């Protein structure tokens, strides 16, 4: 569906989703969980119709190697299995402490960005919250959302009526305006510019949840480099965070902050990350084709890194060691900088300038250390803190941009 105007076809899409909301609101939790899990299982199965179609289309359309697609697809679908879906519902209920909630009449999701699986988690949350949704997938989403909707229709045709998928260009403002004005809540993902544009089109009564520009950082405390074996595990995990989606997502780490004074120095860790871990992933899961525009940035970025400190590079990846220099944004496509820091206090100072744009902080340390790091972060920061190796794999309950994943989908009410 396309065109510059908000057409009758768009109107019908909205009406059908709203109508589908009736069945959704009456559905039991078990029915919702089963439908979502069955749809995910269909896509996870490469021998199923939609599963095979996905694997045929996505690598070329998303610009990712098939091995990268398989890995990211399985990760994204794994959170839609029955146990995590039930756990998510329990988390949602606990968060409201038994207070009554009511679902929004209609949600509108506008996705933009480089991660082709980005629609799955929000779509699942809309259904778990019993909110019908019209969704515009990201241009990088090479058909996954449509195939998920098809798989959902196979699993539970009545519930699938509550999902409408529509594609339109960023210049088709009338379509966005038309959809958004009919929704109670709009979630938008993409650049800060997109956020401003979408927000400007919303009626005053429509809730807006913004997921703008973002990046990830990683922190390697001294204790994680207490021996070569430990350092190798950390490097391998970090390399995976860098390589998944070819470092094009807003959770991808751009820089790794390594605490000095460990058995392995930060510069040696940079060499390890490059020569062992990213090199291995380049063989197992090669980088996808890089646009020349990114190549132009990569050439400049690596050159500056080489002069600031050390450059370790290979066919399809690059690691710079930049000591105490300010953090630069990487061009992505498996280019990551390693910096040296003195400890958690320095980490907080290094992270602070990124504010709400810091969406993920991978930490090579156990949970109690991650909590300790979280408590030391400045008030402006609300990244998802996780173990390295899991930065690209947020669970269903993971917060985004400081909000619960169901933000705006469900409203609390009181009867006094």
């Amino acid at each position, binding site marked *: 569906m396309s065109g510059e105007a908000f057409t009758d076809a768009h109107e019908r899409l909205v009406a059908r989703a709203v109508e589908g909301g009736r069945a959704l609101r009456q559905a039991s939790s078990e029915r919702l969980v089963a439908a979502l899990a069955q749809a995910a299982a269909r896509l996870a199965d490469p021998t199923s119709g939609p599963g095979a179609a996905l694997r045929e289309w996505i690598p070329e359309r998303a610009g990712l190697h098939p091995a990268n697609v398989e890995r990211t697809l399985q990760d994204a679908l794994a959170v839609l299995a029955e146990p995590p879906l039930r756990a998510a519902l329990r988390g949602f209920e606990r968060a409201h402490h038994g207070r009554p909630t009511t679902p929004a009449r209609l949600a509108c999701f506008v996705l933009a960005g480089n991660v082709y699986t980005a629609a799955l988690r929000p779509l699942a949350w809309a259904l778990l919250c019993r909110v019908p949704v019209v969704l515009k997938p990201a241009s990088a989403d090479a058909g996954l959302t449509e195939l998920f909707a098809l798989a959902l229709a196979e699993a539970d045709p009545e519930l699938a009526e509550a999902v409408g998928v529509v594609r339109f260009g960023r210049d088709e403002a009338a379509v966005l305006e038309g959809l958004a004005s009919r929704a109670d809540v709009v979630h938008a993902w993409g650049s800060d510019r997109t956020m401003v544009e979408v927000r400007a089109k919303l009626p005053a009564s429509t809730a807006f949840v913004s997921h703008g520009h973002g990046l990830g950082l990683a922190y390697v405390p001294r204790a994680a480099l207490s021996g070569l074996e430990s350092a190798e595990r950390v490097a391998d995990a970090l390399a995976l965070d860098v390589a998944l989606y070819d470092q094009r997502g807003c959770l991808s780490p751009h820089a790794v902050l390594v605490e000095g004074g460990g058995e392995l120095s930060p510069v040696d860790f940079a060499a390890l990350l490059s020569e062992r871990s990213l090199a291995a992933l380049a063989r197992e899961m090669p980088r996808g084709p890089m646009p020349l525009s*990114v190549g*132009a*940035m990569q050439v*400049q970025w690596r050159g500056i890194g080489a*002069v600031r400190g050390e*450059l370790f590079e290979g066919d399809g990846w690059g690691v710079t060691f930049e000591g105490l220099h300010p953090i630069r944004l990487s061009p992505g496509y498996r280019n990551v900088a390693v910096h040296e820091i003195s400890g958690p206090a320095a980490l907080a100072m290094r992270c602070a300038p990124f504010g709400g744009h810091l969406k993920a902080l991978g930490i090579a340390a156990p949970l109690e250390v991650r909590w300790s790091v979280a408590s030391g972060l400045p008030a402006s920061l609300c990244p998802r803190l996780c173990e390295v190796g899991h930065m690209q794999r947020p669970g269903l309950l993971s917060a985004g941009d400081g909000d619960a994943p169901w933000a705006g989908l469900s409203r609390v009410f009181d009867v006094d």
Partner: protein
Amino acid sequence: MSAEQGPGGREGALRQRIAEALAAPLSPSLRDTLLAEVAAWQAVVNPVFARLCKARRARFDAGPEGWPAVPTDLFRMARISVHPVPVPGERVFHTSGTTSGVRGAHALADLSLYDLAAETAARAQLFPSGPMRLAMLAAHPDEVPDSSLSYMLGRFEAWFGVRTDWCWRGGALDVEALIAALEGAVDAGAPLALLGTSFAFVHALDALDGRRWSLPAGSFAMPTGGFKGRTREVEPAALHAGLVQTLGVHAVKGEYGMTELCSQMYEHGGVLWVPPWMRATPVDPDSLRPVPDGDAGLLRLDDLANLESAVSIQTADLARRTERGLVLLGRAPGASPRGCSLAVEEALG
């Protein structure tokens, strides 16, 4: 100053040999030999280039691809010079800036190679018939002493101008001066060269508001700089057409230069003329090796006249080698916008 640097040292000897090479016919093999010699010397005396060479395991016996080119962004972050500390009296040219607001700097203690390269190339490509009337659509060098474009145009005035009108003053187009230059050329039947930034030409076309001239034969326009990141972007072909229609110039010869270089190239009919003392090579962003003919690559420039900074520069501009020659494809989308035109727009506020 060590035995390496300065007029009496190795630098002076290299300068002399480069000057001789610029002034005489130069074969590609001799050019490449000299480039390697200069690069090897710079890798010793230029600390930034030395670090880059170490990181990229430079070799100087395997042709210019054996050593790295300095990315243009580095000029914003470090002093790229064979004189690690400023030399008294050196001239520092600054880039027009980027969205980050940090401007690159190119310091030159001795402008003799810059002058020789600029005069030789311009005489061959712009002024083969000798001096003529000039109208400058860029600030006078007295007004913007750190602009390499203004410096070059100031030198053009001395070398090639029989009469020169500076039509950009105080940060704005002086429309009356431009109209006077145009009408003076028409009345005298004397060809006029209009030289300036692309963005200034766009402002001039707007300001002339539909009026048209038919300049005498031999008149031409030389726009330089791009528009990326500017509030108003005009395709080069549209600008060229506008200049021909409005001014009645007989040729548009685009200049391709940058603050980080001491030499300039000129574009005719979409093909880039590269002076014999330069190499212009589209390269692959991963391998930094030349791309096959016909493929687009990032333009690497090797310039013998860049004796004091870095002989090899890696730009973010796209180019393709074709049967007709080297074709510029513009700035890679997403790369930091740059170019002299920015200074003009900044001046406009």
